[in-house]
């Protein structure tokens, strides 16, 4: 689906602003002339402190050329300050410096730079790189806008299709799902994210008010779309946070456990946005107990500043990981329990299921925690995942 394009966007193309930060006036002058001639608006700053002040002026720059060695605040420290502001975080930063060694370059990229050019600058190359990064940012913003439009159009959708493990045997998962609310609430999804990898989602959208609840179909569509665009789970959650904020009602949020698993190598990434811990069977198939994977991250869709928790690990053949909804740890056999007690009970039930095939284990665990699902007060969702044989 394409977003409508306003006719004015053809009639009056927007002139992009570039902030040049360099303590050498002659360098700023050189860059200013070059960029003016290429059709950009140029703003200047003589050091990092001036750069932060310049960032606060309107319009916010579309791209920053940042010298590394400067008085007051060097380029790396300046960039860290820029990254602290949610509205500035996506502005591409190109470091320009006389430091051409690999360590300096890697330091810049590790600090989040999109590019790095060594002085003396070759002018055509600088302009080419600036245009590439500006085009990339335009595409990114257009994608966000398109996603928002999709979310709005899907807001009334209620039907939610959840994949059946029998129809997706290569994903090697089993599920127990008892939906107790009429709609919204908890959901799961499983979909391929590469030739050998699958993504597994367990999510819970807060609130029982169906009118305010984001349709799970929309959230699922975005997660799948992000995976198709090769976003990793951490990046996808970052993007989703931006999408959900304008959609959610005040105080509404989602929690998500997002696992990406390569079934050939066992390489796994678990990202969590405020979700309850996952449980992992021990590496030794004869060992007892479970490992709690308490990967802490911010809940989704409620804060400008969002940071998911991330754990990278290797899932061994026949090892199993379980993702849950909180209905499994807030009640036990019909009684309300505190979360530590609930988690302990769940660990016991999961450990006892270790020798069972996964499709039997999920039901056994669920019956141990909720012998009568009708007495549960929240949705019950358990996803058990292994590497395929």
């Amino acid at each position: 689906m394409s977003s409508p394009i306003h006719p004015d966007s053809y009639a009056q193309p927007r002139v992009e602003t570039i902030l040049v930060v360099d303590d050498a006036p002659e360098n700023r002058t050189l860059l200013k002339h070059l960029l003016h001639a290429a059709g950009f608006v140029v703003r200047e700053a003589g050091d990092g402190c001036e750069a932060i002040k310049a960032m606060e002026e309107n319009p916010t720059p579309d791209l920053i050329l940042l010298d590394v060695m400067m008085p007051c605040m060097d380029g790396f420290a300046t960039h860290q300050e820029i990254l602290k502001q949610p509205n500035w975080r996506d502005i591409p930063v190109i470091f320009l410096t006389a430091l051409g060694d690999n360590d300096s370059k890697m330091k810049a990229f590790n600090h989040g730079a999109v590019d790095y050019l060594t002085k003396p600058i070759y002018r055509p190359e600088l302009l080419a790189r600036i245009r590439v990064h500006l085009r990339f940012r335009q595409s990114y913003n257009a994608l966000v806008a398109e996603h928002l439009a999709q979310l709005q159009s899907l807001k009334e959708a209620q039907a939610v299709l959840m994949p059946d493990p029998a129809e997706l045997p290569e994903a090697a998962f089993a599920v127990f799902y008892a939906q107790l609310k009429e709609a919204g609430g908890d959901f799961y999804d499983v979909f391929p994210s590469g030739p050998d990898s699958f993504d597994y989602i367990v999510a819970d959208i807060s609130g029982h008010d169906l009118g305010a609840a984001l349709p799970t179909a929309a959230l699922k569509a975005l997660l799948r779309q992000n995976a198709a665009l090769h976003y990793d789970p951490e990046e996808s959650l970052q993007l989703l946070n931006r999408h959900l904020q304008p959609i959610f009602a005040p105080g509404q949020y989602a929690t998500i456990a997002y696992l990406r698993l390569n079934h050939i190598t066992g390489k796994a990434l678990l990202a969590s946005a405020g979700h309850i811990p996952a449980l992992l069977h021990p590496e030794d198939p004869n060992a007892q107990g479970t490992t709690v994977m308490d990967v802490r991250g911010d809940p989704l869709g409620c804060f400008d500043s969002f940071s998911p928790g991330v754990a990278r690990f290797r899932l061994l053949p026949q090892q199993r990981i379980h993702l849950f909804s909180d209905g499994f740890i807030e009640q036990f056999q019909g009684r309300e329990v505190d979360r530590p007690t609930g988690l302990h009970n769940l660990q016991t039930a999961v450990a006892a299921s270790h020798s069972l095939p996964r499709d039997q284990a999920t039901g056994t665990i669920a019956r141990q925690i909720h012998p009568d699902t009708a007495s549960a007060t929240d949705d019950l969702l358990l996803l058990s995942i292994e590497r395929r044989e």
Partner: protein
Amino acid sequence: MNTVFEIISEADGTVLRPTTNLVAESMADLRAGLREAITDKEGEIRIDLAKVEFMDSSGIGLLIAAHNSLKGRAAQLRVIGASDNIADLLTSMCLDRHFPIERADAS
């Protein structure tokens, strides 16, 4: 008359003490009571959970909404008097990255 919050004005802010658990069943009253209690307030808004034994996802949402509402005004949110269970729940969701959360024995 606010029926769901005790409101105590202090020199540097205001203490709001919910008189009910922060759960979905009470949420309409709590939202209205909070809105009324924080309107035009400056300084620190301290939500004292001394009388709160249980909080569900809607209660967490109420604290998030309070924080976001106060952000950008001359006010900020601090949660005080939280039981260990509630403090653990809030910190497990990293809410302490966004506003201070104090346990009952610390306040």
